[in-house]
């Protein structure tokens, strides 16, 4: 595998809501980025900068008004099922058991029920939800529910996984522990991930590279490589390292500047 084996590319991606009307709002402007195989790429930006719009565009859920997003060489609109995602809301179906939630994507792809359940059970056993496979989501804690949502995403083996602030609804301790778990699981499964977050600490501790976005319309302001690259490092332990603090304050200053520029009319 080459170091720059790319699984997803966005080239000059542009999203405008209500284009051609008086109410047109440009949410994303000319975003160009690439996701390398096996890496975690974090997108951070000020609140309301268009992160979720970019997320939806990358997932192929909304049309682009310019540019292109491709997954494995295909335009994302034509590559349905190649991108799996996980949101702040776990979106587990309350009427289904955990295992039947995990098999959802496999079911959609027409995988036989026995095979789908076998694959789901493997993930459940491997990642610590054994004994809860037949429970309904209402019987699980917030962290366990997000873990089940991640397994649903992993089960159908998408080329790219998009995580949109998946931990933000959790309490601090659960969030930190789950970040650690998710990073480990993603690495073990060899997945390529785009993580959208407003939490700089989360981005630094989980990602290989961090893309800082500007205020709306979102554009790429800067890209940082984390000093640990693909080194296996625990997202909790990493917070103790001086490079973490340094990178944190650099990105913090960049993000802090954006809304101020906006307030005083500089953007």
């Amino acid at each position, binding site marked *: 595998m080459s170091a720059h084996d790319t699984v997803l590319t966005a080239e000059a991606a542009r999203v405008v809501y209500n284009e051609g009307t008086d109410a047109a709002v440009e949410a994303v402007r000319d975003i160009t980025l690439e996701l390398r195989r096996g890496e975690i790429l974090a997108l951070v930006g000020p609140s309301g900068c268009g992160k979720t719009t970019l997320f939806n565009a990358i997932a192929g859920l909304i049309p682009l008004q310019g540019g292109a997003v491709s997954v494995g060489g295909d335009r994302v609109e034509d590559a349905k099922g190649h*991108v799996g995602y996980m*949101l702040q809301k776990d979106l587990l*179906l309350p009427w289904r058991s955990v295992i039947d939630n995990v098999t959802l*994507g496999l079911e959609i792809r027409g995988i036989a029920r026995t095979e789908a359940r076998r694959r789901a059970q493997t993930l459940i056993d491997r990642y610590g939800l054994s004994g809860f496979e037949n429970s309904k989501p209402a019987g699980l804690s917030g962290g366990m529910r997000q873990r089940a949502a991640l397994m649903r995403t992993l089960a159908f083996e998408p080329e790219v996984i998009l995580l949109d602030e998946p931990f933000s609804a959790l309490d601090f301790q659960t969030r930190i522990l789950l970040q650690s778990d998710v990073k480990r699981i993603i690495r073990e499964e060899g997945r390529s991930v785009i993580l959208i977050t407003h939490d700089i600490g989360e981005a630094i501790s989980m990602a290989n590279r961090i893309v800082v976005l500007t205020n709306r319309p979102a554009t790429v302001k800067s890209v940082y490589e984390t000093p640990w690259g693909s080194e296996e490092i625990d997202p909790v332990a990493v917070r103790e390292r001086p490079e973490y603090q340094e990178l944190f304050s650099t990105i913090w200053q960049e993000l802090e500047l954006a809304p101020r520029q906006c307030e005083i009319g500089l953007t």
Partner: protein
Amino acid sequence: MAMATHSSAPARAPRRGPLGETTKIRLYQIAVLLVIIALWQVGLWIGWLKPYVYGTPLGVLQSFATQIADGSLLRHFWVTGQEVVIGFVLGCALGSGAGLLLWLSPLWAKILHPYMIALNGVPKIALAPLIIVWFGLGMESKIAIATIITFIVAFLQAYKGSQEIDPDLIRLMKSLGASPWQTFRTIVVPGSVPWIVSALRLNVGFALIGAVVGEYISAEEGLGYMVYYSGQLYDLNSVWVGIFSLMIMALLLEAIVARLERYLDMEH
């Protein structure tokens, strides 16, 4: 006092004394009925209530006994019961199905929107005379009234339920590559169950209203006919027999719907 223990089966509800809460509630429910009957009887004794205007508890009991003995009450109950149940099942099934299917066609949902608002606002029973004209004087017209009224309620509720599905769930299904039909089957139908169940509850009353009003307008048997006919003859004891029978029917149907609701809740 020694506490009774039940080693063979666990208690179904927490007990706080010699009587379980459910038993206590049942006893109070019976007591309320007895108090109403007692007040009714006292009102008659002291002359505040006239027997020819309000009937008498004893007269109602006698009328009950006579009509059970000659089989007429059972016949009326059976006729109305069939009208209500058939109308309820047809209306709920077709209405829920149609309301849900509308999710698959946002264009048709938009086209039908003003009609849905109009149907929701109109007192549905106003359709009864028309339906009697279309379906004739027999049992079919009462079934049709109950069906049409319950159809409207089930249709509107199911449609509303389908529109309340979390849009993020729909997006999730899209990202998994699901077809609209797969999303419909997997998300929309089960996700609308609480709305459909609430329509079932509402429709127990509407099906009864439909059948009884149909019988008021034109019929030769059924509890609605019996109430209306006895009223015309000032046989108020029989009117009460009819009303109490309708209440029993409503309670039975409610109990069936509640059981179905519990089952769907378990599945849900």
